[in-house]
């Protein structure tokens, strides 16, 4: 990681799920699964995303891959705004107008950075309608490019492979569609991909039920790998495997990362796996990022009280070692009705009055160490 290039930049991502009730399926409430989340993923690194169940970490992954449409926010991949790719055309245009054109007309051009600057130059060069035409043209190619850039490995190896088609088709379906590989070279490429993940190449004519859980997870990895992606979102990819298989799959993923210069977003609830895999760790609580720091920083000196409590819950394989555990009171509140101010304040041992009133912003307390807390580091 000598030069740090941003691969994915997520800006103020929001995903609400509607709760519908009654005869007319009126929306009565929203589940705020992901509420204003921003982070960056640099090329070649592994970002661990931790949090307890229901905190929105899987939703972040799914929205990133556009398996869910974001409610609002911006997802920038490879210095291209990809947010509008999967919208209907009129919505996409509205989005572009709201996000860019209005800003370009109001604000001072010299303050723009990154993607804003790039798009501003485009706007200056082509004018407003030219800007729309340029960005909304060749959407199919752009979607295809997006799919090639990002892939996912799922949690459940038993549900993630279609039981009725052969491994060869499972693995080659996407790459053939996106012309990553030619139809004529399917057999060779599938064989190579399978062998790379440690499956015998001749087994490509088998069906998923003929493999064990660990093997299936490897096939899932091969499926993603053959798309030649830059980023792989691993959604609890090893949670369903038993410990010995888990370490094999983790090591396989690390090897592949080196070989193909992959970037991982590693979603997990298992801190020991995160500690082993990640370069940087993002901690989520109830739809918000509470802390974002390099692995070393985060594990050595967690600043958010929630992170601290999480760390104290990691089991240590030493029966004589007595560690002081921080036990949090109560349960995670419902994301339908999150607490006011800091979402963690009802359970926080060091909460003060301000915590229930004012929402702490994610701020950089140390270089590269972001915390959303009014009193970072106050819990010892």
């Amino acid at each position: 990681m000598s030069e740090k290039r941003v691969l994915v930049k997520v800006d103020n991502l929001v995903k609400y799920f509607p709760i519908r009730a009654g005869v007319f399926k009126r929306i009565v409430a929203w589940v705020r699964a992901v509420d204003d989340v921003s982070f960056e993923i640099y090329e070649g690194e592994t970002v661990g995303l931790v949090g307890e169940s229901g905190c929105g970490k899987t939703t972040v992954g799914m929205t990133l891959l556009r398996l869910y449409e974001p409610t609002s926010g911006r997802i920038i991949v490879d210095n291209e705004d990809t947010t509008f790719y999967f919208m209907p055309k009129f919505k996409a245009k509205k989005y572009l107008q709201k996000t860019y054109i209005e800003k370009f007309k109001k604000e001072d051009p010299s303050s723009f950075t990154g993607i804003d600057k790039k798009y501003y130059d485009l706007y200056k060069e082509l004018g407003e309608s030219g800007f729309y035409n340029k960005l909304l043209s060749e959407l199919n190619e752009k979607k295809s490019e997006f799919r090639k850039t990002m892939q996912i490995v799922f949690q459940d190896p038993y549900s993630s492979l279609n039981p009725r088609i052969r491994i060869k088709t499972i693995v080659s379906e996407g790459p053939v569609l996106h012309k990553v590989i030619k139809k004529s070279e399917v057999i060779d490429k599938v064989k190579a991909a399978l062998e790379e993940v440690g499956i015998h190449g001749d087994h490509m004519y088998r069906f998923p039920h003929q493999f064990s859980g660990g093997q299936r997870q490897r096939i899932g990895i091969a499926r993603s790998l053959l798309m030649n992606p830059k980023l792989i979102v691993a959604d609890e990819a090893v949670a369903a495997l038993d410990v010995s298989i888990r370490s094999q799959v983790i090591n396989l993923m690390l090897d592949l990362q080196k070989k193909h210069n992959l970037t991982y977003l590693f979603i997990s609830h298992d801190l020991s796996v995160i500690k082993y895999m990640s370069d940087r760790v993002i901690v989520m609580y109830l739809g918000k990022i509470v802390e974002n720091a390099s692995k070393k920083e985060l594990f050595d000196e967690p600043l958010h009280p929630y992170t601290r409590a999480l760390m104290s819950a990691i089991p240590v394989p030493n029966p004589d070692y007595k560690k002081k555990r921080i036990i949090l009171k109560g349960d995670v509140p419902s994301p339908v009705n999150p607490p006011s101010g800091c979402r963690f304040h009802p359970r926080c041992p060091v909460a003060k009055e301000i915590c229930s009133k004012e929402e702490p912003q994610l701020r950089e307390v140390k270089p590269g160490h972001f915390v959303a807390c009014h009193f970072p580091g106050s819990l010892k």
Partner: protein
Amino acid sequence: MNTELKRTLRKLFKNPSAILGFTLLIFFTLVAIFAPLIAPPVNPMFPDENGNPMKLDNPYIMPILSWSSDPVAPSKDHPFGMIAGRDIFYGVVWGTRTAFKIGLIVVSASTLIGLIIGSIAGYFGGWVDEFLMRVTDIFLSIPFLLAAMVLTTILGSGLNKVMIAMVIFGWMATARLIRANILQVKEEQFVLAAKALGIKNFIIIVRHILPNTIFPVLVQATMRLGSLVITAAALSFLGLGAPIGYADWGSMLNYTRNYILGASGQAFTYWYTVFYPGMAMVLFVLAWNLVGDALRDVFDPKLK
């Protein structure tokens, strides 16, 4: 796959009721195929110049062999007896073809419609689902016989019109069944994985979802094949279906209306008029039900 197929077949043929079902089905199929040999479509009442009996223009219209419309008891020439001047044996044999025609065409057409509507509703969800399911509910709320009668009044009577009516009012169960199954399967991770690979919706439905949801529909279609013949017979009995003299089990029962009660004091005098077409129908329905049961046992993963 081959070993699995073998295991499936072995399981199928260990089950006596499955064997009975398949045997009956094969028997009916053979009768339907060889109908021209079993009951030659000729009318001996009208010999041509060489003395050979006249060939029938339409073999499905039973030839009139006698001008008396009273039932005639089974004899060597007419093993199942005669009614309304027509040979019951001829009607039962050619009626097999009619039964297959009605069953197969109506079931495949209505299943196809149900599949398309149910898949779209289940996969896309939201207001599309809401709209299609309410349409389904409306169709379900109309009593079938009444609707069929109204429709045949509009379209005119005839076997084809009855089949159209049965297709129009026969797809709802399939649509609901496939929708429910798709709702279950579409949340599976392999469907999400296909979406993440950017596979098109149509291919996701056809390749990833339908193969994992279609077996209950096939089983249901098989079972329906038999019962549809009964429905068609009911319509024919009411005089809505096949034209007069058509070789159709239901229409043949229509002829027996006056003789079902028998002669005074002798209830079973005209038993053959009801027994043979009725028996054909019962066995045909039974065959499909047994086959449907057997298929369900084979395809149900919980029983594996």
